[in-house]
């Protein structure tokens, strides 16, 4: 299948993907986001950044754009390699095509990829947290299914299946994602524009004042109330089981 003399192309792909991920990691560290580990997928790497969907919209978009920017620098690296006579010009063109493909693939608006997260950040400008998640997941899944139907390339289809599997898993864990977001908001003190609204959810871009049972609650108080209700529910459930 993969001939042993494809090592140059495989090495190039590995190099480009690790440059991409290290750009993400460096941007994350510059904005003081924690990066606990780098995950290895079959088709590349992924730097897991803590609280990536929870903090400032603007900073996170910059972190997410840092990755694709590396791909704009790669053609210059290829020219340098050609000048040093390490690869030929036709091969440099081929590698540039690979680079462009990786860039386009990353900018697709599908959830685990960079493009999907940028779309999610955009949606969070005007939608509450859960609503934004649902809309972006729905768009991602429909786009993946559409691409799966349209393409004839087998490896692309396998990768799309893998992405679909990841998205379905994320749909199952939306509640946990929401709670992580509320933990983050409770601990951080955002100085943002105040937004009064009746929705039982937080807007990421504003400081929320939420209408709850005919009174206006500040964000922190509302989150504490949310977790207290959750605790009460769990205790009631465990009491029922014991009885």
């Amino acid at each position, binding site marked *: *299948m993969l001939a042993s*003399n*494809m090592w140059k192309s495989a090495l190039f792909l590995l190099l480009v993907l690790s440059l991409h991920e290290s750009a993400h990691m460096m941007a994350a560290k510059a904005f003081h986001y924690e990066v606990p580990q780098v995950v290895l997928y079959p088709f590349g790497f992924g730097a897991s950044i803590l609280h990536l969907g929870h903090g400032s919209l603007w900073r996170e978009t910059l972190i997410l754009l840092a990755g694709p920017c590396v791909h704009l620098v790669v053609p210059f690296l290829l020219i340098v390699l050609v000048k040093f006579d390490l690869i*030929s010009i036709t091969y440099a063109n*081929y590698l540039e095509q690979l680079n462009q*493909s990786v860039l386009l693939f990353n900018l697709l608006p599908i959830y685990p990829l960079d493009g999907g997260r940028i779309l999610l950040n955009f949606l969070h400008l005007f939608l509450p947290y859960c609503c934004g998640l649902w809309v972006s997941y729905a768009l991602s899944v429909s786009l993946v299914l559409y691409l799966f139907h349209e393409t004839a390339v087998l*490896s*692309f289809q396998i990768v799309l299946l893998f992405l679909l599997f990841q998205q379905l898993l994320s749909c199952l864990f939306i509640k946990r994602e929401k709670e992580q977001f509320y933990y983050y908001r409770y601990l951080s003190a955002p100085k943002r524009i105040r937004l009064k609204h009746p929705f039982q959810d937080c807007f990421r871009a504003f400081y929320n004042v939420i209408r709850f049972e005919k009174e206006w609650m500040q964000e922190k108080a509302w989150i504490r109330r949310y977790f207290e209700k959750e605790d009460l529910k769990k205790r009631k459930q465990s009491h029922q089981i014991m009885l």
Partner: protein
Amino acid sequence: MKQGQRIHRRIAKRRCGRNKPPAFYRFFYRFSMLIMIGLVAVLGYGISVKQGFVTGEDLLAVGTWFPFEKWFSLQDETVSAMPAYALLKDHYYSNGSNQAQAIGDGVVQSVEKQDQRYVILVKQDNGVIATYGTLESTAVKKDERIQRGDVLGTYQESLYLYFEKDGKEIDLTQAKQG
């Protein structure tokens, strides 16, 4: 009482996870697991080739497995021109210009120099080994991937072409199709 305390301590340790082995041992363990899985996969593939379940290297074109190659091709297949070679003498062809173009996707196996002329061997995705001889200059290097229509080098007057599949010689039309 002591027994109970010991048991409680053991349970507490397991729960906290503070008794994890050092990072190097964990890395070595995962690395060796990966190696074992890889060996099983390679062994399984080797056995199926030996048994004849799959036919070795011309199972599928490499391009269908290698990621990103034709995922976002903005041009159609027909636009990347199939070079037209006209037969002059036996094994000597010409395509109207002095640039030798590849007739199929593949990987360059070797670039050799014989009597001040270059000979390029290309292993195509369809299993054909194509030899491009009597080249005056080369534009590719060993182990590089080429697509159909890529310029491999320049030649004067005529280009030597020889195609082989499974040890037997085949002609140009068969080599183009596979």
